[in-house]
């Protein structure tokens, strides 16, 4: 498995790099409207064809990569940060604080996640930042649960007792002696969750709740052209393919991480 994991990681990085680099190329403008060449099927100058406004789908797909991957990364990072703070606080202090925080976490986990994300996206003006917030609001709870569990085991280690014996305060122990041990775990967890974040982002933008047109996100490209699927299937096919491949690679990486760090619970 590690080999496929590495290959998947390389693919993701490649997609991201192509996306970033293409935004610097002049002829790769994903917004350029060319009414002379609308709805062209894939050909030599437009490898993925063109859409209803003559925009080149290859470059739009390429440009979409940085939005999808970027939003997923940032949302995963925010989720990890919130979940991390909740988790270490609940795990370290225990007792009533733990019970209260974990009740909240369980409540968040009991929601159908997409409905909650939709509700948040409806309330806030649609856009990239709203998607990030919605995804983080849905995603942080499972981080909190995992980190809390980890803190509970770390807390019982002898070096924590000795730190306390030397006279360290709660905050010092929490931030200098416990938190650093939880960071690798949160990073692993981020890797595992990224595939899900990519798909959730795409779903939100498919529903028109994400980045607004003409921003080329994969979800919104599929959504905008799904009426042409019979006459011009390439408009829907390629963004979806890019999306599926990227999510697949993220899931492969996640799978590799999960196996390596033996996080067995598939719902984590």
């Amino acid at each position, binding site marked *: 498995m590690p080999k496929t994991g590495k290959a998947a990681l390389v693919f993701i990085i490649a997609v991201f790099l192509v996306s970033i680099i293409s935004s610097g190329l002049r002829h790769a403008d994903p917004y350029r409207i060319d009414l002379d060449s609308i709805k062209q099927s894939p050909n030599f100058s437009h490898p993925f064809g063109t859409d209803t406004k003559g925009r080149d789908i290859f470059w739009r797909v390429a440009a979409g990569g940085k939005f999808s991957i970027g939003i997923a990364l940032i949302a995963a990072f925010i989720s990890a940060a919130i979940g991390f703070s909740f988790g270490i606080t609940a795990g370290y202090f225990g007792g009533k604080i733990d019970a209260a925080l974990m009740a909240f976490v369980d409540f968040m986990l009991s929601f159908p996640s*997409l409905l909650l994300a939709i*509700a948040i996206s*409806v309330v806030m003006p649609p856009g990239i930042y709203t998607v990030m917030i919605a995804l983080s609001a849905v995603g942080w709870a499972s981080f909190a649960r995992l980190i809390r569990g980890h803190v509970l085991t770390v807390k019982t280690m002898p070096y924590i007792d000795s730190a306390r014996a030397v006279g360290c305060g709660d905050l010092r122990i929490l931030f200098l002696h416990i938190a650093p041990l939880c960071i690798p775990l949160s990073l692993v967890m981020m890797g595992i969750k990224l595939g899900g974040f990519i798909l959730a982002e795409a779903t939100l933008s498919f*529903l028109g709740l994400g980045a607004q047109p003409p921003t080329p996100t994969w979800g919104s490209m599929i959504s905008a052209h799904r009426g042409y699927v019979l006459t011009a299937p390439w408009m*829907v096919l390629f963004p979806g393919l890019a999306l599926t491949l990227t999510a697949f690679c993220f899931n492969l990486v996640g799978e590799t991480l999960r196996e390596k760090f033996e996080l067995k619970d598939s719902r984590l």
Partner: protein
Amino acid sequence: MGVTIVVFALLKTLPGDPAISLVGERATPETIAKIRTSIGADKGIVEQYFGYLKLLMNGDFGRSYFTNRDVGSDIYAKFPNTLKLALSAMLIAIPAGILIGFLSARNSQGIIAKTSDTLTLACLSMPVFWSAILIMLIFSLKLKLFPPSGTGNLNFLILPALVLAIPASATIARVTKTSVADILRMPYITTAKAKGLKAFKINMVHVLKNAIIPIVTIIGLDFGSYLNGAVVTETIFGWDGIGRFIMEGILKRDYPVIMGCIVVGTAVFVVVNLITDIAYHFLDPRIKLHAKDR
């Protein structure tokens, strides 16, 4: 005991309301004050929120801003459709998932396992809205086997159910595989084999019965993703259920509709989780109902 479960379920549903209050806040568009008064949006957020809560307590979901129809009765009319869709998806996903998981657990390093691992991961990576469009393209537009969209009899049901079943069966297959593989390593399976029992009997009685708990858990938990998937699938296939209802509500910013669907969706989710918990007891009598699992 029954009461505690009901209270528990209620408590779990109830805190959906911060969302309600937020939605109430946006319900004040720059339209005329008259409309605002008529939908009650000129009142304070807190007042709106408690007003909504009070309505909800009486089983009233309010009226749609656009159609002025009673949201509760609309949901009541559309809910069976969504349920039908979800159940038929499960009817496809559960046997398929368990079969694939079982086969790949039986030959864990072999070709079947590797193929199914890759395949299930691919299924999970495919966004529902994309696979829906592809399936629609192939089966109804090219092959013309099934109608592309609409609500109605079995013909209309098959494609959306299939789309929903793809990621669900993949999840079930993965869980089944892990669970069955764990059981197959148990000494009593060796004993059963040594006693000369038929492979079929070992699989059915000894393996599946013991491996079933995680599978049931994932099916229950996955019900939430059926609801998630239903939003997209129903919109694409024009299936007249809750999912499409909420999407229309979102597009028109019809807050009573959105809130009603989210409240009902969450309630269903909680109830399904509850049923799953109760099902444990019947599948494995060692699990006691009153001992909370957490």
